[in-house]
């Protein structure tokens, strides 16, 4: 009798366990609740608000898994090296300097998103729809407002002005071989002075004691006089959005930015960032949805304060800090992505020989 009771108990509990499984598993099969995983590979600077990602996840019953893979070059390398067994479904962060290389590696599938109607046409550089523009930012010379007003020094109006004696030793730039804003600035000078003239210009800049450092962090935080490093150069190659970041990330409330950027014709270089669906994805439908999402107004309005770039979607409204503290160049410098891919190494080597040796 006692034994029977024991078996009965076991039996009942088994039933209950099974029942529990049953109860839970029914809605899973019915509504297909088990979320799929979408892998998005991107660079370390990527950022997005938690709320809008969880909204996307809920709507599409998906778990978005971000693979942050170093800087732009490192992330792209990862995508290229693993193209035979793709690690992700979507890749965000190819910029116009790497675009042509990425396309020639055939790592993206074409996708003509419906959202493209709201995207600024000027940014759509890839006519095969493998890389769709998400955002852009301008690499510009930033200046320390206080320095110029207190020294009663007029601002340089163009790149040519920077070789004038009054700006001797006042500009810090990044090495184009190791830094992405450094490369962009080199390209601005190539766009302005041409393939035959840019080295001459750099020679004069060198004679005017331009300071070269390897990375943006050193240029901005150590050399730039308006940043927390309180360095010696009041002119730095940075982004046109940096003045807004100075206000937002200040340690005391500010009504105006301590910095601003020089936006005359061809003095800034426009970096455009693209998203693409990686070839060989098993989640093509979801990947398309994610690309749509990145181009949508929700994501595009979230972009500026997360990554300090401009939305490619013309309908997206900008945050107040952007309209108040940032100036956008009307005529930024630009170069053909194919030319960049072809000449990049030549330019960098020539620049190194001219400026560093």
């Amino acid at each position, binding site marked *: 009798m006692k034994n029977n009771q024991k078996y009965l108990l076991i039996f009942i509990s088994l039933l209950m366990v099974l029942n529990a499984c049953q109860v839970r598993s029914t809605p899973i099969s019915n509504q297909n609740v088990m979320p799929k995983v979408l892998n998005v590979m991107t660079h*370390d600077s990527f*950022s*997005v*608000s*938690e*709320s809008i*990602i969880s909204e996307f996840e809920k709507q599409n019953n998906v778990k978005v*898994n*971000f693979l*942050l893979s*170093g800087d732009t*070059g490192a992330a*792209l*390398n*990862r995508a290229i*090296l*693993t193209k035979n*067994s793709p*690690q992700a479904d979507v890749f965000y962060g190819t910029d116009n300097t*790497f675009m042509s290389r990425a396309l020639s590696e055939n790592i993206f599938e074409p996708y003509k998103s419906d959202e493209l109607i709201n995207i600024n046409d000027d940014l759509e550089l890839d006519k095969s729809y493998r890389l769709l523009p998400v955002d852009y930012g301008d690499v510009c010379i930033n200046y*320390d407002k*206080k*320095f110029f007003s*207190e*020294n009663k020094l007029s601002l340089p109006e163009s790149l040519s002005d920077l070789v004038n004696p009054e700006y001797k030793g006042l500009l810090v730039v990044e*090495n184009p*071989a*190791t830094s992405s804003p450094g490369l962009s600035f080199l390209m601005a000078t190539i766009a302005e002075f041409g393939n035959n003239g840019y080295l001459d210009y750099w020679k004069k800049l060198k004679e005017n004691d331009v300071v*070269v*450092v*390897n*990375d943006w*962090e*050193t240029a*901005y*935080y*150590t050399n730039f*006089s*308006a*940043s*927390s*490093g*309180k*360095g*010696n150069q*009041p002119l730095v190659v*940075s982004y046109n959005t940096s003045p807004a*970041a*100075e206000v*937002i*990330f*200040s*340690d*005391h409330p500010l009504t105006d930015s301590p910095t601003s950027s020089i936006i005359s014709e061809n003095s800034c270089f426009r970096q455009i960032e693209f998203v693409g669906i990686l070839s060989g994805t098993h989640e093509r439908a979801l990947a398309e949805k994610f690309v749509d999402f990145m181009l949508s107004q929700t994501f595009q309005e979230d972009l500026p*304060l*997360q990554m*300090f770039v401009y939305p490619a979607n013309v309908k997206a409204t900008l945050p107040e800090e952007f309209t108040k503290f940032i100036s956008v160049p009307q005529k930024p410098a630009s170069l053909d992505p194919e030319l960049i891919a072809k000449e*990049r*190494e030549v330019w*960098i080597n020539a620049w190194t020989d001219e400026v560093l040796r």
Partner: protein
Amino acid sequence: MNFNHEKMRKTSFKYLPKILLGLIPIIFFVIFYFLPVSAIFTRAIELASNQIKLDQLIPRIWQPLRFSVWQAFLSTFFTALLGIPAAYIFARFKFPGKSLMRIITTIPFIMPTVVVAAGFNAFIGPNGWLNVFLMKIFNLGDPPIAIINTLAAIILAHVFYNTTVFIRVIGGAWAQLDRKLEYASGSLGASRIKTFLKITLPLLRPAFISAFLLVFLFDFTSFAVILMLGGPGFATLEVEIYTQALHLLNLPMAGLLSGIQLIFTLLLTSIYSWTNHGRIFQLTARDPNEVEKKPDSLIEKLMIISIILLLSVILILPLLSLVIRSFTQINSISAEGEHLDFQFTLQYYQHLFVNERQSIFYVPPVTAIQNSFVIGLITVIFALLLGYLASRTLSMNTKFVRIYDALLMLPLGTSAVTLGLGFLLVFNKPPIDVRSFPLLIPIAHTLVGLPFVIRIIQPALVSIPEMYTQSAALLGASPWKIWLNIELPILSRAFVSAGIFAFTISIGEFGATTFLSRPDLPTIPIAIYRYLSQPGVMNYGQAMAMATILMVICAMAIFLVERLRLPGISDF
């Protein structure tokens, strides 16, 4: 003849378990080192075809190679200049603040270079406080110390990072050296210098060579220090590899350069294991009370004070500059930087705990510390386990050991970019997939830490007199019991020292693991880089605050571990 044969059979049988256990580190190495590295080389060769023109190639290899060797040579020399006297006073003397000092010398290892560069700038940069101070006192127009972006800055940073290697590797062995040998030599009429050259140096030779080699390789493959403190005028092979691989996407060139770096390393480690082999003297473990004494003569006192002062200036002041900066709000009243108003603030720390931008990648400091610590502890376990097994194999006297020894050193001379990309190339599908196999991060750290661990454990292991284990076995103790009651107590100090090395290497490593890092497992260096990648005073302050927290917590952890003695084990 017959006798010899018999003896050989016996010997190989005796070594069999050791060889089998020694295979475990080899298997680990083949999977996690040779596979990724050879995969990258294969891919580089596949892509190479005939893109590379030889006449342009030679200067592009020769220049960075020459500079890598030259700066590593200078850096090692100057590190030794500070490190050897420091190792001596740590091994031989008791002085107030010694354990604190020992911990502080370890801290540089865990600091990401980007913050160290900021620390050096806050200290001796053009507007660093030392320059500002000197300019005020002597009424100078220009900052007197202008070494940022010079070779001197590179050397100084390398001394800052690597002095601890000399203190721990040489100092560790020195502390085991019987003082009576020196006394005997002295009473036989030898001068102090003669005693050092004829007695101390030969006995400590393996430790010296090990320390020199480790530091040289670290400097040889230096990357972030060259980039951030040396500036664009200098490029080591490692910097070139980084540029070629990640900025020009020229994998063949990067592969070629890292191949050359590797061949050079292999050459160096082979020479090392050849010359160092069979020269290990049995140093019996000593009680610290027996070897360490209070300084009695004035010269000894002066010597200790001056070395401590030097260590403080080079190691502590840059770190302290960081800490102070994390508590200071600077309001400039004039743009010239002459009228700066300094205010104490805690806001950088307070803001660390707030996800202001609601970002999905916000890293709460506690999480970052937890992740760093867990990864660090796993690295310690892997590195000690594999390092111990490898050390046992290395203490055999066979030819195989020499190759084994040279090979295990290779990760130190391997480009982090190459290793990282190699990991991506090999481990991208189950069972080991970078995306779902978080152990790859501590494994990569273990590869770098292992040479250090072996250099520390192996000499200690050899120092155990066979007499001890033999008599224990004779008295009927099981191998396990012998290990627990004889080996472990004698090795405990070496284990602690080696474990601390593995831990600090893991916490500070930022090379190969940037490729493997996962947003769900952010570590402290990653959090610091995230702050520093955007403009704004607050971001800068928060990076400094995070670095300070990292420093303090690691110092506390190291302090506790150094205090920790297994119960029932006297302090050897």
